[in-house]
């Protein structure tokens, strides 16, 4: 992938000045390229990777496997789009294998997430079954280790 995008995926807050030094581009070139990515929708958003467990009221993440009946027109896209529009839904993926859609739901409590599944999701037309899992702990997310780092054990000066 493009090096600029790789760097922004690691740290979206990296300054154009630093990016220009790393990539051997001018600051203006970096700014223009980022603006182009934003305009083309290559970059959809900039978000922080948050360790929810450090927060007093952490969110509950629910992972749901959904089987659906594809529609004759639109296949999986229409139902996936309808599901995506619920604000509770964090991510939606179309999968190969034993089920069709994989959903990640964020809720304040398990009860809240369960209500979403039983009241809003299962009742949607086209959904034939759901399997609900609650996420217990996050070890790594978006390439970031959430709990452990690897300490630098090297000598401070070496040949």
């Amino acid at each position, binding site marked *: 992938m493009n*090096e600029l995008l790789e760097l922004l995926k690691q740290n979206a807050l990296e300054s154009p000045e*630093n990016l220009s*030094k790393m990539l051997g581009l001018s600051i203006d070139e970096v700014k223009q390229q980022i603006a182009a990515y934003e305009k083309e929708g290559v970059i959809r958003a900039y978000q922080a990777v948050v360790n929810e467990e450090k927060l007093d009221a952490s969110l509950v993440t629910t992972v749901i496997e959904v089987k659906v009946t594809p529609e004759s027109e639109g296949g999986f896209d229409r139902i996936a789009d309808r599901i995506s529009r619920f604000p509770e839904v964090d991510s939606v993926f179309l999968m190969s294998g034993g089920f069709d859609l994989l959903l990640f739901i964020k809720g304040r409590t398990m009860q809240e997430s369960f209500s979403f599944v039983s009241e809003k999701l299962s009742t949607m037309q086209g959904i034939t079954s759901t399997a609900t899992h609650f996420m217990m702990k996050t070890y790594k997310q978006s390439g970031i280790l959430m709990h452990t780092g690897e300490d630098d054990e*090297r000598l401070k000066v070496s040949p």
Partner: protein
Amino acid sequence: MNDSKSLRNRITKTVREIPRSGIRDFFDIVSSREDVISLGIGEPDFVTPWHIRDAAMLALERGVTSYTSNMGLLALRRGIAQYVEKKTGTAYNPVDEVLVTVGVSEGLDLAIRALIEPGDEVLYHEPSYVSYNPLIQFAHGTPVAIQTKKENGFRLTRAELEAHVTPRTKVLLLNYPNNPTGAALSQQDVEDIAAFAIEHDLIVLTDEIYDELTYDRQHFSFISVQGMKERTIYLHGFSKAWAMTGFRMGFTCAPPELTEAMMKIHQYTMLCAPILSQEASIEALKKADSDIAYMKAEYKKRRNFIHASFEQMGIPCIYPDGAFYAFADVSKFGMTSREFALKLLDDQNVACVPGTAFGACGEGFIRCSYATAMDDIKEAMERIARFIENL
């Protein structure tokens, strides 16, 4: 004990007269301080790739804890021969031309001890890795340092070689890509130096441990030149590109007579390289291409960053082609390298290595390693900028 029998006087003159490494000296100073950002580290900041560590653990689980053949595990030597042929186009027989050593450090020691008799001259270039000069002296050879120049990008030229060769010159010791300058050679440079070695009938020791780490051009090896394999000991190891420094794994490739000679010393001093490290290295050669590519891409961004930052500060620094060092020229501040490095450490808690640790001609320079996390490099560059503003 009277003076003549003091312990110091019982140590050989050769060892007594070799000064402590400038690196060790500086290490002691840096170690006494807290929260130092160090650009003084000559090893990768990456941990050895997981699958290589896993291979070492699996070997331990299988109870692989014995000696190996003095030469090293044949499977590893085969892997090394394949790797070297792929990189350089030169084929070595894994049975009698490849020797597994404990780091390139041991390989160099073996090569020099196998070849040098008292009074033989060894040509090498400075600034250089810290062990070259002492190893030659331990073998009672005469080190002849050629001072490479900033205006040549610290590349060794044929003219400089011609000016230093004598009838006593037996060995030419080379290290490109270079620690500490970051210089790498073009194919033409390599061919010129090789022609010189052939014309003067010298044995060449080429330490190419940084061969994977060139950023703007493909590395061209001395053993790729016609007529060089016959007179060359090629030294390489897993420390840098595979981030395996603590495994202490190196190897030599050389004609059977030279390999046998080095093997004799190796078998009586080291017996063999540690078997777990050898097992890990077999894995490293099999499937670490993507790991190397990843680390190299990271180094390249840091190289660009550190070079651009020095330029912005008005500190001249040759564009480092290889390895992971920037050799910055701080002579204009009117201090020695050591004074500059000490004051920088004192004022801003940033450690770098004075150029003089790599030979007298390193005066006026500091070595900054970019085998350092990008965030630390950014912070260090800001601190250096603040430091020089107040000079």
